[in-house]
């Protein structure tokens, strides 16, 4: 059996290496992927189309905004599915596990975290909002934000973190994030464009069509950030307690 499992692995390996001989030169600017009109359009026209200096953000949130919407949906799905899988399942009784420590939260740790969390959260906002001009954006900001709550849960315990961020709120915020994203898309559709055609927002906001894209991208990123924050914390809360939402690790 063990030997048998090498066969598909080897077949795949040979196949992939066989294809590698046909690849374009590594790092060559003339490779089809780098030379294609699509890639050149992104590099040459992002500024004109959207006024966003960070091409990755522009491509992520605008050119391929539809992808990113579903990417957010995937995150949301993961949160919902984990909730669905672990909610009300199995043992209801509080089982004390051998690695569970009943000690009070450590003074040094909690105080350090007390200082650290606001900094992390502000940094998260920065990363989210500054995604237009530097690496960053909704996902990164959202993860940082979620991490700040996870840090609270780690240094005190889950109960404390859940008081600050109740589990129902994760679902609501996660939903709202998608609602925000898709809502911006829907709004621009109502204003006469295609779905997610942010430039139509210029009809109701006093900005140029390009700047409408620029600002709508920020809105979209906030939506992404909301969802990711909520779901990251929800994932941690559920996974660390097998869905029982007790004291946690």
């Amino acid at each position, binding site marked *: 059996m063990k030997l048998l499992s090498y066969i598909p692995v080897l077949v795949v390996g040979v196949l992939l290496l*066989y294809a590698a*001989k*046909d690849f374009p030169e590594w790092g060559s600017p003339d490779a089809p992927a780098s030379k294609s009109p699509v890639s050149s*359009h992104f590099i040459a026209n992002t500024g004109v189309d959207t006024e966003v200096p960070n091409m990755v953000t522009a491509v992520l949130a605008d050119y391929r905004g*539809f992808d990113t919407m579903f990417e957010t949906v995937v995150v949301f799905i993961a949160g919902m599915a984990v909730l669905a899988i672990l909610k009300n399942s199995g043992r209801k009784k509080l089982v004390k596990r051998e690695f569970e420590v009943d000690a009070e939260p450590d003074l040094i740790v909690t105080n350090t975290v007390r200082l650290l969390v606001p900094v992390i959260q502000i940094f998260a906002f920065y990363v989210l909002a500054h995604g237009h001009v530097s690496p960053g954006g909704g996902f990164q900001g959202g993860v940082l934000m979620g991490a700040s709550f996870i840090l609270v849960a780690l240094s005190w315990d889950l109960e404390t973190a859940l008081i600050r961020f109740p589990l129902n709120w994760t679902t609501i915020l*996660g*939903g709202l994030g998608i609602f925000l994203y898709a809502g911006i898309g829907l709004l621009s559709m109502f204003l006469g464009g*295609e*779905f997610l055609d942010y430039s139509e927002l210029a009809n109701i906001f006093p900005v140029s069509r390009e700047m409408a894209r620029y600002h709508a991208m920020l809105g979209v990123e906030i939506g992404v950030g909301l969802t990711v924050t909520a779901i990251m914390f929800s994932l941690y809360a559920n996974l660390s307690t097998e869905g029982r939402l007790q004291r946690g690790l």
Partner: protein
Amino acid sequence: MENSIAWIFIFPLFGSVACAILGISNRKICYPIAVLSMAGSLWAGIETLRQVLSVNDHTVSYLFGGWTLDAYPRGVGIEFHADILGILITLVVLGVGLLVSLYSKLPVEEETPGKEPLFYTLFLLQVTGLAGICLTGDAFNLYVLIEVAALTGYGLIAIGSNRAAAATFNYLILGTIGASLYLLGVGYIYIKTGTLNMVGIHDIIVAEGLADSATMQVAFVLVGVGILIKMAFFPFHAWLPNAYSNAPTTTSCLLAPVVTKVMIYVMIRMVLSVFGVEFSFESTLWTDVLPWLVVVAIVCAAVMALAQREIKRMLSYLIVAEVGYMVGGVWIYNYYGLIGSIFHVISDACMTLCLFLGAGLILRKAKTTHFDGLRGLFTKMPLTMTGFFIGGFSIIGLPPTCGFFSKWYLITGGMVSQRWEYMIVLMFSTMVMVVLFFRMIERIHLAVSESGENLGHGHGDLGLTDQQTRFDEGPLSMLIPLLLASAVVLVVGIYNQEVVSLIEVFLSDFNLPRGEGIK
């Protein structure tokens, strides 16, 4: 309506968010939201079909974000590319979604108490993903949507019992391998063509003559194998029977009819529209190899189905066999085979829906889906069993159900390509299905146990109490979807010419052999 194609997924997407948020305070609200958003989505789908039929080249391109083709190069934005085939399969998905959402009220409340909001959220997103797969014109967006459909699927299955969770894990591992291979294949395509737009890829393959390129060949293999895993083609089928038979009723009703079919649609799409007929059929070995794999697949799946004594498991293996039919129909490479394959995607979705809805009702009333629990069910619930057996007759392929017509085209296809082995295997599995369904009819109809002993006392005595055979149909909210589904099986069969003519319009763009003039 101009944006109808976008409304197809807007309805379920917003519906699912509404379910998640509003469901926290009021669980009852999820069911109407789900039904309404499915109905809205179906309406948008029909609207889109009308739109597709009204334009000259029968395709509607919808560019998200307003990155229109006249002002920007193709592939900059994401395109929804609705041709006749895509919109037909979308309609199937949405129709199944609507019927199952109607059906779901009681089973969801009872099997997953307290989780209704989560269930409906995942349910609606599943339909969103599947409908998106049918319409998207972007190879990478397809990956994202496949994962949307897959993740919701994992959640929907594992929401049930512990067994379901264990089965889901295998599904997850295999599903991830499949999706990742597909993603890798897309990477290979991208490295050679520099675009992700399906139409763009096809244009570049034709323009630059990439048919002989080793990278493209391997890309084809990776994409193909990825999709085959996702559609539970025989050697990769291991996840399907466990997952579907252990899933909650509503989940299996939704997943079983559409998930594998949608992946077959993706294969057809890849073969015809993305890689192109010449590339797929003439410059790869697949036409030589795959029909023989299909033979093995159908035989094995049929034999395994024969060994089952539990309705849902048996049906799951039948799905694996049916997948073999459809894959075979594509790879025997001719016009009729493809018509058969596409039509079978549609009809198989209808009949599998019918069967699983029926199985759900049987489970509810008889408390078991084991064959032994079937005795006397016809007197107890005649309407349910009628619906169930219309589905069964369709799988066997008796006229005038739609299964007959799709099987007819598949057989014709085998004949035109002179793939006798494929035809023989079709006959073989047809006979297996006859055995399977009439064995069930026997169980229902006769007072004889499998070993042959008489259970009753002769003269129609089934050996059951009056209580057990008294007329006791399932609740209307479950029965009506089943009857509607069986009506659809008949109607699609009777009006098959309308569907086939649409498929013929779609296929007329491709240069497929018809095998005319052979004596």
